């Protein structure tokens, strides 16, 4: 097959795909929906603050011991993460950290975001990124450091990355002349990683010094942020082998802290887009890094045990909760018929009481690795297993969402089930239900943007 024949076939296939996606559209509706969606995303950011405050209030009243211990430790008087210069802490006491577990993290960790500037949280698996600025970047990677159209560095961008490594790799520099992939696994112990970055990727790294994070030893180094020449990569990836996997950028002036948590290497990167910007950002960032606390030894038992119950805390106290109730929790073994899965699970049943006729497309978001079941007219069915959270966060803002049509008449109830394994370090997590499309209900044309709960792994009150 020659080039022309191949191109003709590709053209035909891709054009057919494009045509299948084409639809008659109303530009007014598309634009209005986009503007509304952007506004909702903005409101969710504020809800994050409300949610953490609600969690704080609930935890102050009656809490499971470990969660209280985790939260009670903050702000924690940990040794300063030298050599980052200590500055006046700007973390707000009201911005309580959410105890979270990063997928791929050896332990959950808590943190306390500064009150000023407002920082956004971006999570993809083992990478937790906190940055200043709006997440307007179409290709979000946790940095938001580059202008999306020109590729130039944004002068005021700055942030902190907390990332756990699992078989990291970098781009060999200079790239091999052969056709073999320009990807090389690097050592994932703290000292080995820093050495390999310098030796294999030619990353410009300062002298390595001893430091500490959360009371434990760490290695500290600074990156000049000089872009490597040629086709050398400007990042290292945390794991996997995909170019789309989370990465730590090496082309930004930054301070690195590399340390071990239960046998896994964690990297904290304080970055800005200029040396001057980094110097100005360092005090606030250092205060933030000092609040990071890994809460629970790995391998310990879950906070939840068989027979435990959980409670749901409405994240938005002003939300209209009458339509939605959590009616039952239960745990059991082997939930799947025929499954040899010996894990124990806990299941949350959520009932939507439909007061008026609704036709909705709904979106679920929940903690990664949970399984969502739903009932809509027929029997209960497993909707889909879910994996990583594309945009999970504390609390999850987007998460792995599952869409499900809900067609219900007044007086109906619609049940949803969330099934979570009782293992690992389940503590406190997040669940939301987001009505999406338009309703035909003339009386109540809009459901709330989002119903959401914090699920507290403690005794039911």
């Amino acid at each position, binding site marked *: 097959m020659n080039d022309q024949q191949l*191109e003709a076939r590709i053209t035909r296939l891709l054009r057919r795909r*494009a045509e*299948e996606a084409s639809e008659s559209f109303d530009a007014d509706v598309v634009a209005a929906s986009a503007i509304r969606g952007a506004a909702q995303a903005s409101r969710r950011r504020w809800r994050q603050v409300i949610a953490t405050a609600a969690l704080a209030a609930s935890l102050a009243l009656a809490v499971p011991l470990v969660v209280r211990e985790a939260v009670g430790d903050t702000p924690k008087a940990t040794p300063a993460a030298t050599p980052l210069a200590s500055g006046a802490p700007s973390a707000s006491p009201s911005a309580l950290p959410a105890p979270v577990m990063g997928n791929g993290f050896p332990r959950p960790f808590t943190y306390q975001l500064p009150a000023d500037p407002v920082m956004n949280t971006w999570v993809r698996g083992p990478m937790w990124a906190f940055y200043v600025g709006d997440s307007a*970047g*179409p290709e979000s990677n946790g940095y938001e450091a580059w202008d999306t159209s020109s590729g130039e560095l944004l002068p005021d961008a700055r942030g902190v990355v907390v990332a756990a490594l699992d078989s990291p790799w970098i781009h060999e520099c200079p790239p091999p002349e052969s056709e073999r992939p320009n990807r090389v696994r690097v050592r994932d112990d703290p000292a080995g990683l820093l050495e390999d970055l310098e030796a294999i990727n030619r990353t410009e790294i300062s002298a390595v010094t001893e430091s500490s994070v959360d009371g434990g030893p760490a290695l500290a180094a600074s990156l000049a942020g000089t872009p490597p020449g040629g086709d050398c990569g400007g990042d290292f990836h945390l794991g996997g082998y995909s170019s*789309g996997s989370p990465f730590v950028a090496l082309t930004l002036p930054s301070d690195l802290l590399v340390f071990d948590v239960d046998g896994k290497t964690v990297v904290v990167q304080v970055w800005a887009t200029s040396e001057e910007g980094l110097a100005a950002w360092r005090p606030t960032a250092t205060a933030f890094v000092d609040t990071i606390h890994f809460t629970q030894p790995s391998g310990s038992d879950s906070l939840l045990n068989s027979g435990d119950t959980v409670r749901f805390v409405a994240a938005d106290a002003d939300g209209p909760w009458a339509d939605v109730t959590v009616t039952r929790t239960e745990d059991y073994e082997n939930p799947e018929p025929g499954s040899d899965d010996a894990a124990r699970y806990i299941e949350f049943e959520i009932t939507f009481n439909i007061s008026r006729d609704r036709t909705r497309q709904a979106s679920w978001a929940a903690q990664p690795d949970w399984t969502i079941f739903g009932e809509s007219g027929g029997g209960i069915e497993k909707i889909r297993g879910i994996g990583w959270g594309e945009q999970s966060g504390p609390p999850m803002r987007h998460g792995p969402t599952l869409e499900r049509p809900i067609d219900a008449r007044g007086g109906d109830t619609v049940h949803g089930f969330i099934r979570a394994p009782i293992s690992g370090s389940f503590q406190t997590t997040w669940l939301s239900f987001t009505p999406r499309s338009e309703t035909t209900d003339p009386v109540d044309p809009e459901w709330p943007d989002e119903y959401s709960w914090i699920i507290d792994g403690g005794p039911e009150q």
Partner: protein
Amino acid sequence: MSPDGASSVVARAASGDRFAFTELVATHHADMLGLAGAILGDPDAARDAVQLAWQRAWTGLSALRDESRVRSWLLSVAGNEARRAVRGSRRSAGFLSADVLIDLPAFPPHADSDNLGYEDFALEQALDRLDPRDRELLSLRYVLGFSSVELSAHCGLSPEGIRSRLKRVLDRLREELTHE
């Protein structure tokens, strides 16, 4: 529309003018859908991706410095959202249970003359195994008709680099089809 007119619409949209934003949607939505559809091969996912792209465009337009590049920028946003959807679906696919997987269509889904034959099915499979960025490149070239120079500006590579990359992708597809 004149370049000045186009710039004016972009500037007004970037400043929060909903009517101007709607005008941008009317002008570019179809191309963005086509691009996302070609990348994803799933009409519904493409529509979702483009809707998200418009959401990001609304908040990100003010960062667009060269207003004459609005088409390329919007296509980039749509392409990015489509690639993100590809990654999300791949990630989720790893967790699909067997009872879900058995619902997937068996090969070939439509083996009659009006639909996909074996060769096209194989090509489609090969296309889907490409890096989404390469699929985006092919879509821009063969669906939207970008020239090498336009692709060069869009991708930030030299025209020679674009031609070289296109050739590599075509070679890879040809090789995969040969081994089918």
